[in-house]
C-alpha cells in the first residue's frame, strides 16, 4: 500500500537523453522463478490478509444493517473511534517530526556512539509493547520518577489522552526514522553547497532545498507510523486507564465486547475501525505519491 521507493534518479522513459529502447520483445527476467514468486505472493496475501478480513466482514454482516449500526455506532463507540484516530494522528505527526531530526543525526553523525544510538532506535520494535505501557505508566503516575514533578504541574502522563499519545510515539518512531534515514544519507551534499553559494542561508537551504527532497519520505514515515499507531493495543491498554468516552481506544472497546462474548458486535466495531484506517492510509499514500512525482 505504501510506496517505499524514493528512487529519484530514475529518468523517465521519455527524457530527451534516454536512448530509444529496442523493439519490445518478450524478455527473459533476470531473476528466475518470477511466476513461482508471484504465486507465493498471491497465496500469502490471500491467506494472511484477505481471508481474515473477509471473515471479519462476514461476521459483522450477520448482524444486519440495523444491528450493525446499533453495535458499531453507539456514542461510546464513536468516542472510541475519535480517541483512536486523534491519538494516532497526533502520535504519527510527532513521530514524523522527531523521526526527521533523529534520522538526520543518525545519517550525519560520525562518532563511535552513533552506532549504539542507531541500534537503540529499533528497540521499540522488539520490546513487547505491554512492557512499554507498564513502564510509561510507572514513570508518569503521581509517585513515578517523572510524574512526581509533572503531575503537580497538571501534566498527567498516565491514565490520560497524553499517555496514549506518548506510548504511540514510542511504538511508531522507528518507522518514521528508518524511512527517512536512507533518503538523508543519499542526499547530495553538493546540492546544499550549490544553494549556499547562490546566497541561501542555513534555514533557506533547509526549507527550500533539503526539506522538499525529504518530504515524500517524511510523509511515508507518517503513513507507516499512523498505521502502526492505529493498530496498537498492548501498550495503550496499560497506560490509558480505558475510561469510556475519554481514554478508551477502539481496539480496547473491541476487546471489552469480546469479553462480553458479543463477537458480532466486536467485529462490527473492527470493521468501522478498519474502514476508517484504510481510507486514511489511502489518502496519505496518495499525497505521498504526488509529492514523490513532484520531486522526480
Amino acid at each position: 500500500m505504501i510506496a517505499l521507493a524514493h528512487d529519484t534518479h530514475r529518468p523517465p522513459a521519455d527524457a530527451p537523453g534516454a536512448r530509444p529502447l529496442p523493439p519490445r520483445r518478450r524478455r527473459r527476467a533476470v531473476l528466475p522463478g518470477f511466476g513461482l514468486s508471484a504465486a507465493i505472493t498471491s497465496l500469502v496475501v490471500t491467506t494472511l490478509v484477505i481471508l481474515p478480513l473477509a471473515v471479519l466482514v462476514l461476521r459483522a454482516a450477520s448482524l444486519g444493517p440495523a444491528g450493525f449500526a446499533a453495535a458499531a455506532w453507539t456514542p461510546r463507540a464513536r468516542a472510541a473511534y475519535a480517541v483512536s484516530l486523534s491519538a494516532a494522528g497526533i502520535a504519527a505527526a510527532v513521530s514524523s517530526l522527531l523521526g526527521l531530526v533523529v534520522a538526520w543525526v543518525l545519517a550525519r553523525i560520525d562518532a563511535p556512539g552513533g552506532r549504539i544510538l542507531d541500534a537503540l532506535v529499533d528497540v521499540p520494535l522488539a520490546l513487547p509493547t505491554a512492557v512499554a505501557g507498564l513502564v510509561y505508566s510507572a514513570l508518569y503516575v503521581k509517585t513515578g520518577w517523572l510524574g512526581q514533578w509533572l503531575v503537580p504541574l497538571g501534566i498527567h502522563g498516565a491514565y490520560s489522552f497524553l499517555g496514549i499519545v506518548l506510548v504511540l510515539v514510542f511504538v511508531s518512531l522507528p518507522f518514521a526514522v528508518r524511512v527517512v534515514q536512507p533518503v538523508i544519507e543519499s542526499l547530495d551534499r553538493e546540492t546544499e553547497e550549490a544553494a549556499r553559494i547562490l546566497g541561501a542561508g542555513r534555514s533557506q537551504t533547509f526549507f527550500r532545498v533539503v526539506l522538499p527532497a525529504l518530504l515524500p519520505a517524511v510523509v511515508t514515515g507518517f503513513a507507516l507510523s499512523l498505521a502502526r499507531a492505529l493498530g496498537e493495543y498492548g501498550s495503550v491498554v496499560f497506560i490509558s486507564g480505558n475510561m469510556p468516552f475519554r481514554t478508551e481506544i477502539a481496539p480496547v472497546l473491541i476487546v471489552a465486547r469480546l469479553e462480553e462474548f458479543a463477537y458480532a458486535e466486536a467485529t462490527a466495531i473492527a470493521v468501522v475501525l478498519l474502514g476508517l484506517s484504510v481510507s486514511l492510509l489511502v489518502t496519505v499514500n496518495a499525497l505521498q505519491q504526488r509529492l514523490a512525482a513532484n520531486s522526480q
Partner: protein
Amino acid sequence: MSIHVRDVSKAFGSFRALDRVSLDVPDGALLALLGPSGSGKTTLLRVIAGLEHPDAGTITEDGADVTERHARSRGVGFVFQHYALFRHMTVFENVAFGLRIRHVPRPEVTRRVEELLRLVRLEGLGGRRPAQLSGGQRQRVALARALAIRPRILLLDEPFGALDAKVRVELRQWLRRLHDEIGMTSVFVTHDQEEAFELADEVVVMNHGRIEQRGTPAEVFDRPATPFVMDFLGTVNLFHGRVENGRAFWHGIPIPVDGSDGTDARPRPARVYLRPHELDISRTASPSGAESSLAAEVVRVAPAGSVTRVACRPCGADADVQVDLPAERARDLGLRPGEMVRVTPRTARVFPVDHDYVI
C-alpha cells in the same frame, strides 16, 4: 575580477591537499587547473569559492581579503561536476533560485531567467524537471543557475567530466564563447589536457598539492618545467642517458637538448624525454650521416586519424620507441612490421636524474 591566492595550505587529516599554493588570476582570464586526481586542483577551486576554509594563507579578490568570507556572500558562480541541480524544482525555478534568495522582484526574475535560458539555448524547457533533461542540458541549466546572480568569477569543477565526447567538445567551444561575451574571470578544473589546452588562456598544472607549472598551453606543452609536466601532458618516450655539452646521448647518438645553452660541459646522467611526434622515420640514413639516426625494427603500425602511431624496437634495446608520423608521411613510407628503418630524433628534453621527481 582578479583573484590572488597566497600561500594557501589545506590538509584533510594527514593528506595534504594543498601545500603553500600561490596563484594569481588576472581579471577576465580563463584559466584551467590541470592535474591527476588527488593533485589538489578541486580543493584549490573550492577554497577560491569559499566552500573550504584554508588552514593557512589568504584569498583576495580585487585586493579585498575574502579568506574569512563565507561562500554565501562571495557572489561567485560555481558549477559542480554532477550538476547538483535541485531535483524537486523546475528548470525555471533552478535558475531563479539565486534571484529569489536575493528578493529580486518577480517580473525581473522572469525576464532574467528567460534571458539566461535563451543564452544556454534551453528556451521553452523552463517547465521541465532536471530528470527530464539530458546530461548536456542539465549542465547548461547548472551554468545558467550559476550565472543568474551575475557573478564576476565563475568556477567550474570538471564541468564536462560526466558528458560523452561529442557533447563535451560542443559545450567546450560554447563555454569559451560565453566567457568572452560575458567577460568574467573563469577558473575550471579538469584532468583532460585536451580540454585545458583548447579552452583556457592559461594552464596551471598541479601535482601533490603544488603548482608544477603555469603558462599558456603552448608554453606548457613545448617547454615543460618539470618531468611531471612532461609526463602528464601526452605520451612520451623516456630513456636514461647522459647529457654533455648541450647534447643528450641516446643509444650513442647525440640529440640537441631544447633550451640548453651548451655551457654545462660536465657529463652527467639524465632522463631523456622524446615526444612521439618529435621523431622521424626514414628508410635510409639521413645525408648528415648515420650517426644522427638509429637503426630500428618496425613492431606495430596503427593508423589513428591524422597521425599514424608506429612502434619501433632499436637494435639491441629492450623497449619500444613510440613514433607518431603524419598520416600522409606514413602512407608514403608504407611501413610494415618487421622492416628495418632509421629513427631520427629532432629534439629532446632532458632532466637531470637528481631532479625531485615524483608522480
